């Protein structure tokens, strides 16, 4: 099997189901029984292929993890309860008090909040840079740097960074690159081929197949030699290339308890099967919508990497194979005009999610970023006159009709 869609549908069926089911069932159970005391000991030592407790592993969750591993060619995958759980797990696995991570302010609002408000008080220094300034990045890395964190397409600024260049710089210092690939998924961007150490994904979005379930993924691409990461030295000595996965499974992930429920794993496995088809349609629709918005006199700026005048068009085209994701932003006169536009819509949903099958719209400044001051919003690239649209997979003519309604025109 080589094709993405084929692997997404057929991989991970190594264990024969007693009834020959074509779909992995939902193992909705907490614990598992063992034949004897030695068997349970071996399971706890991870020397026997057995599940013991669903906070640590579960057959339905394992099936989803294995399918993602097959799709990404990764060293290992751990499915967690949300995208934010994936980010918090990986940062807590690699960093500690007195160390630092390097990132950009242009990250998802809750990720920024995690860094600024949750992790900073625990003594983690977060160094914010414009990650397009490569010399500055090189000068900012020091012996206390534990990771460089970035997103494939930032949300909602839609900035696209050259991941290869970041990875090349990080490799000089043996610092792992953590990439949030939520809005691209392995269908548009294969992180393993671009020097990324760990990909984190909110599988709630594109993967879940229509906003069916919250979930997240931690993907060890296999690119990083973990013996150079201070937190993982001991794990690297014991587990070699599996150091990160074992450090998570036997400590951080196990102890934080942010496991994916079997029900959600089932729904996400189902969604994964049609991921490629849905992303293709979403990307096509987003480009059409972006071009329509650009033609409207009421619109100030349209920000979409698929537009040729986007400063990120060339790098996005190279990295994502000529598809540019399903999210765009545009500006109107002011916040009042944005609210009026949103309230006139009848098909497009007023909702905070992204990469649903349905097209969604939100005013980021008054919602996701409502806790921030005007100055902070400016620094975060979230002006009051900006709307974000997550373009779904409907017939695009119906979306255009609804957007015309938003402008108050037939």
């Amino acid at each position: 099997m080589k094709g993405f869609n084929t692997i997404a549908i057929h991989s991970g069926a190594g264990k024969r189901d007693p009834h020959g089911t074509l779909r992995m069932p939902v193992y909705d159970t907490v614990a598992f029984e063992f034949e004897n005391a030695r068997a349970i000991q071996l399971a706890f030592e991870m020397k026997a292929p057995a599940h013991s407790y669903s906070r640590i592993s579960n057959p339905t969750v394992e099936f989803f993890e294995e399918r993602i591993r097959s799709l990404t060619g990764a060293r290992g995958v751990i499915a967690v309860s949300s995208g934010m759980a994936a980010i918090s797990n990986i940062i807590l696995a690699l960093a500690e008090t007195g160390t630092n991570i390097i990132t950009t302010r242009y990250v998802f609002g809750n990720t920024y909040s995690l860094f600024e408000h949750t992790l900073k008080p625990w003594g983690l220094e977060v160094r914010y840079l414009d990650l397009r300034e490569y010399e500055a990045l090189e000068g900012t890395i020091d012996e206390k740097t534990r990771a460089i964190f970035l997103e494939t397409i930032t949300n909602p600024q839609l900035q696209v960074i050259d991941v290869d260049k970041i990875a090349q710089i990080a490799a000089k210092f043996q610092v792992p690159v953590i990439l949030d690939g939520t809005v691209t998924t392995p269908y548009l961007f294969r992180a393993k081929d671009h020097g990324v150490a760990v990909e984190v994904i909110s599988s709630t979005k594109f993967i879940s197949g229509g906003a069916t379930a919250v979930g997240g993924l931690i993907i060890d691409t296999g690119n990083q030699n973990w013996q150079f990461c201070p937190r993982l030295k001991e794990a690297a000595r014991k587990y070699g290339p599996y150091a990160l996965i074992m450090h998570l499974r036997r400590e951080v992930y196990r102890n934080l308890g942010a496991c994916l429920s079997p029900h959600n794993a089932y729904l996400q496995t189902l969604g994964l099967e049609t991921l490629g088809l849905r992303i293709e349609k979403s990307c096509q629709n987003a480009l059409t919508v972006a071009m329509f918005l650009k033609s409207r006199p009421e619109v100030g700026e349209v920000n979409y990497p698929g537009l040729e005048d986007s400063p990120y068009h060339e790098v996005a085209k190279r990295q994502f194979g000529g598809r540019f994701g399903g999210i765009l932003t545009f500006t109107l006169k002011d916040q009042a005009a944005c609210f009026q536009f949103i309230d006139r819509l009848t098909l497009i949903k007023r909702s905070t999610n992204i990469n649903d099958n349905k097209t969604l719209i939100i005013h980021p400044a008054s919602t996701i970023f409502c806790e921030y001051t005007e100055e902070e919003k400016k620094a975060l690239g979230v002006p009051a006159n900006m709307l974000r649209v997550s373009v779904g997979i409907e017939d695009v003519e119906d979306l255009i009709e609804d957007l015309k309604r938003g402008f108050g025109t037939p």
Partner: protein
Amino acid sequence: MIIYLNGEEKSVPQNGLTVLELLSQVGVNSPETVSVQVNGQFVEKDVYGHTILKDGDEVDFLYFMGGG
């Protein structure tokens, strides 16, 4: 020949047994979910089929139960 699998002595009938064949013999249907060490060295999954075990080898399996 004799090998030591997860610390326990195990008699295997043939010489030239590969890691992949050993996994099959012990009933592991999804070798991609197991990491294998031979004499303390991790073996990459894509060479399980070419890694031949010798008499006295210490073989350790670790099962991650999901995605590696």
